[in-house]
């Protein structure tokens, strides 16, 4: 039996029972569609999380203080509360680590800020002029902190757009306005561009002041809470990280690297961690959607078994005019594969439509990869074969005499 004959027989058989074929296909459509949609939402989330991690800086390495670990007793203070990093450490990194393109130490803490009777509680970052280049921050209005500001301990501030909205209102020019940080007057000299992102870790709700002023007037000490280092390129990040670790261990007189009193994270580690989390989420979503695919497959098997029973006499006739076992097997297998394949095509379209809809109306980023589409087709064809095999074998195994007599 030739392929085109087989397809023609299949077409006749499926179109003879349009409603039933359609409903059976629907099961697969929903299964494949939900897998595609769920995976696209998961991959979209992964993409946007990676993008937002990338946006905090390029080739970024973060050094944070950590409590020194001593053998025997494990006392660990919260990250950032330990005070082990000094301004001098940052200067040394700048001077000695050749792979470090720019170094930006910061001393940040949350303070109450007031302006014209409004007030807000936000992150105040005392830092240096190199900070915008290390952390991908752009200036929207005015200017960022200058070397002169650092030297002269100027009480000037650069505010983020969200802070501006809180203190002065939307679309107000804040340049030149006074603000009070922890009861000390500062003058706004600039505003950063919005980087997007809301809630926890928003980079728009922030106030930058000179590091020297933060240490003198607000913190009252010479420690820094984070040193951000940007490596010259992506390939040298590991080497840079190693150099910094060696340098700081030497400066802090620590022999055993396991007992370091600081932590170093690089951006790739963060991206990898976030990716593994979103990967797990994607897998979970796909697995849940996959259950509906199995249910759809059982629907296919159910329909094929019904069909075989209904068409017993037809099978008997086909055998009596010379159809072999494999002809009958092929015919029913092609029917079920055709059902699932059609379901797969429509399901991919449905999944695509759903993910476009989710992006459009819920504002969640989605991305459909060619891989997931191919996987969906593969899975739907496999379901057709797996769930169609048993009914097809049953049809092929019928005795022609009994099949012809079947009422």
């Amino acid at each position, binding site marked *: 039996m030739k392929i085109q004959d087989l397809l023609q027989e299949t077409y006749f058989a499926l179109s*003879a029972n349009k409603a039933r074929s359609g409903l059976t296909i629907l099961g697969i459509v929903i299964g494949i569609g939900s897998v595609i949609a769920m995976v696209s939402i998961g991959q979209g989330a992964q993409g946007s999380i990676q993008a937002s991690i990338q946006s905090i800086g390029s080739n970024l390495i973060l050094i944070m203080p950590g409590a020194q670990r001593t053998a025997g007793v494990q006392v660990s203070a919260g990250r950032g509360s330990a005070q082990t990093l000094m301004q001098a450490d940052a200067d040394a990194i700048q001077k000695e680590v050749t792979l470090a393109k720019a170094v930006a130490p910061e001393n940040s803490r949350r303070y109450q800020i007031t302006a014209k009777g409004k007030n807000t509680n936000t992150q105040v970052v005392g830092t240096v002029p190199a900070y915008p280049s290390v952390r991908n921050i752009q200036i929207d209005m005015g200017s960022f902190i200058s070397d002169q500001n650092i030297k002269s301990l100027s009480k000037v501030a650069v505010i983020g757009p969200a802070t501006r909205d809180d203190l002065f209102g939307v679309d107000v020019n804040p340049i030149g306005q006074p603000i009070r940080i922890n009861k000390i007057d500062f003058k706004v000299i600039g505003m950063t561009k919005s980087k997007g992102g809301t809630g926890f870790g928003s980079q728009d709700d922030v106030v930058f002041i000179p590091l020297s002023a933060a240490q003198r007037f607000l913190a009252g000490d010479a420690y820094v809470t984070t040193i951000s280092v940007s490596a010259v390129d992506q390939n040298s990040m590991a080497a840079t990280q190693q150099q910094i670790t060696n340098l700081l261990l030497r400066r802090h007189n620590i022999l055993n690297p396991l007992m370091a009193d600081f932590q170093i994270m690089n951006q790739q580690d963060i991206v990898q961690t976030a990716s593994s989390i979103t990967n797990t989420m994607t897998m979970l979503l796909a697995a849940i959607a996959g259950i509906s695919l199995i249910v759809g497959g059982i629907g296919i098997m159910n329909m094929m078994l019904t069909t075989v029973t209904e068409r017993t*006499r037809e099978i008997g006739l086909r*055998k009596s005019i*010379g*159809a*072999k076992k494999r002809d009958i097997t092929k015919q029913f297998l092609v029917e079920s594969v055709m059902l699932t394949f059609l379901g797969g095509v429509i399901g991919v379209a449905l999944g695509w439509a759903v993910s476009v809809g989710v992006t459009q109306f819920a504002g969640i980023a989605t991305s459909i990869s060619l891989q997931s589409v191919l996987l969906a087709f593969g899975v739907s064809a496999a379901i057709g074969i797996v769930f169609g095999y048993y009914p097809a074998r049953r049809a092929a195994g019928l005795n022609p005499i009994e099949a012809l007599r079947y009422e």
Partner: protein
Amino acid sequence: METAALKGASFKINDGEFVAIMGPSGSGKSTLMHIIGCLDTPTSGEYFFGDQSVAKLSDDELADIRMQKIGFVFQAYNLLSRATVLRNVILPLVYADIPKEQREKQAKESLRSAALPEEFWQHRSNQLSGGMMQRVAIARALVNNPALILADEPTGNLDTKTGEMVLETFQRLHMEQGRTIVLITHEPYVAEHAQRIIHVRDGNIVDDSQVKNRRMISNHI
């Protein structure tokens, strides 16, 4: 426990003969038909189709013989009800891997042989009367140019008049085209349209003789 449906049944059907196998229900004539039609093989004994011994063949080899050498006509027609007449007749050629261009030509030829008017060829088979459906079935049996046409109670579902039309078709195919036809029936009246009647009773052949007063339907001859 095994019960023999047929025992000691030995006979020969010659090329070009029109034979009726007759017997009441339970006589073993169905088993005989299944073996003659290569739908089943005997548990013991021999069956030669031409020079080929059939008794020990596999399912696939039996299917090949049915495809190439036997045309079946059933009591219940067994047509694909939603397919057109033409498609029903073409069906055996699909399994025989006959090229597409040739199929329609062969099918139309056998529809003419079965005397089915051309206006019905594109009808769906469930729109036809019983007599017409049986003619489609005969056309389907003829389409692969078989050595043997095996008709199992072909008039069983038909009234006398349409039944006669079907029998007339068989007689004409036998006379004009020299077809070998085996007709299975329990009605003496139907059997008397053949040349020779084999009587089966309780698994034995009780009589095998030529028909003396053969009924001829001669309006076409």
